[in-house]
């Protein structure tokens, strides 16, 4: 039996009289749920969106730290489902709980080099990919590094292609700066947020103003 298949449950009188629900009420109720879902009742994954010059970002965190940053083009539904599958299905939108992360992005796009230390949860990357991301975190603001040069800093210095894969599957773009990895021929190379986004980020870090 499904929820709707049997016993069409309409009565004209009741139907007409159920008042429309004020969206502000539902927002307030959601806020109460967010406030209560803490401690032992904390969700597996918190998330919120952050508007940025490169589009709306989805920022998701566990209790340990930010675990995923996704670009708008990745699709919110797909990203949330992936988080539910990989981390846990108790995924809740909790904007206030991710205020610090939102401030980090605001500061970054305002030109701050390393706004502040944002707690990260790197559980979505494993093995060699995680090692690449760790090396990547040491690449300073405004610098560029080639895939080959980044590979040379890892335990598998010849694994240039695997380094490319690690960058392409970076669960924490922007925060872990895979946009600073460019091709040896000087072209920017691929980027999860789109090559144009990568160009804009490199321009930002080169000191160019980034129009909204």
């Amino acid at each position, binding site marked *: *039996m*499904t*929820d*709707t*298949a*049997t*016993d069409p*449950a*309409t*009565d004209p*009188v*009741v*139907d007409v*009289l*159920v*008042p429309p*629900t004020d969206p502000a*009420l*539902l927002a*307030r*109720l*959601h806020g*109460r*749920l967010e406030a*209560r*879902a803490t401690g032992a*009742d904390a*969700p*597996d*994954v918190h*998330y919120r969106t952050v508007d940025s010059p490169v589009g709306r970002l989805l920022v998701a965190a566990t209790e340990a730290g930010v675990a995923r940053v996704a670009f708008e083009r990745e699709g919110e539904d797909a990203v*949330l*489902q992936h*988080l*539910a*599958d990989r981390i*846990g*299905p*108790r*995924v*809740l*939108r909790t904007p206030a709980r991710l205020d610090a992360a939102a401030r980090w992005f605001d500061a970054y796009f305002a030109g701050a080099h390393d706004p502040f230390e944002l707690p990260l949860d790197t559980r979505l990357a494993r093995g060699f990919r995680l090692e690449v991301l760790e090396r990547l975190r040491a690449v300073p603001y405004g610098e560029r590094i080639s895939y080959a040069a980044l590979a040379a800093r890892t335990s598998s210095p010849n694994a240039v292609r695997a380094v490319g894969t690690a960058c392409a599957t970076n669960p924490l773009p922007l925060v872990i700066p895979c946009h600073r990895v460019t091709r040896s021929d000087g072209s920017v190379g691929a980027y999860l947020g789109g090559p144009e986004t990568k160009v804009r980020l490199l321009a930002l870090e080169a000191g160019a103003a980034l129009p909204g």
Partner: protein
Amino acid sequence: MREPFERIVAAHGEVVWRVCRGLLPEHDAEDAWSETFLAALRAWDRFEGDRVRGWLVTIAHRKALDVLRAGVRVVTTEEGVPDSPAPPAGRDLDLWAALARLPEGQRTAVVHHHIAGLPFAEVATVTGTTPAAARKAASDGVRRLRTLLVLEDA
């Protein structure tokens, strides 16, 4: 593959609100709503089946009873409605106030069937009665609502 819980809140938040409000005064309904989704969040990774709405309504029903029991006020079937005639001529008809004037069994049957949209078999499970009794209670309740709300002015 389980859906992200936020999608459950988005899909069912409104119907759970209507259930809570149908059973409780406004402020208590807000408590029951957040208690319901908090309990559902807690259990979501263990939920089995596809009848999410029935599951949520069952929780909401239980939370509403909890809120009623815990409340300082004893909410009677006449709760919230002064001894005044039904509202005039089809305007400002207050379904929630009218529901509060129904006997408890009729009120829950109308809320769970006509507002939450559960089939009588599920209404019976939620309220601990039989499907036939749930059907009769809903039908009696709707008849009473009609007198309270509409047809006496038509």
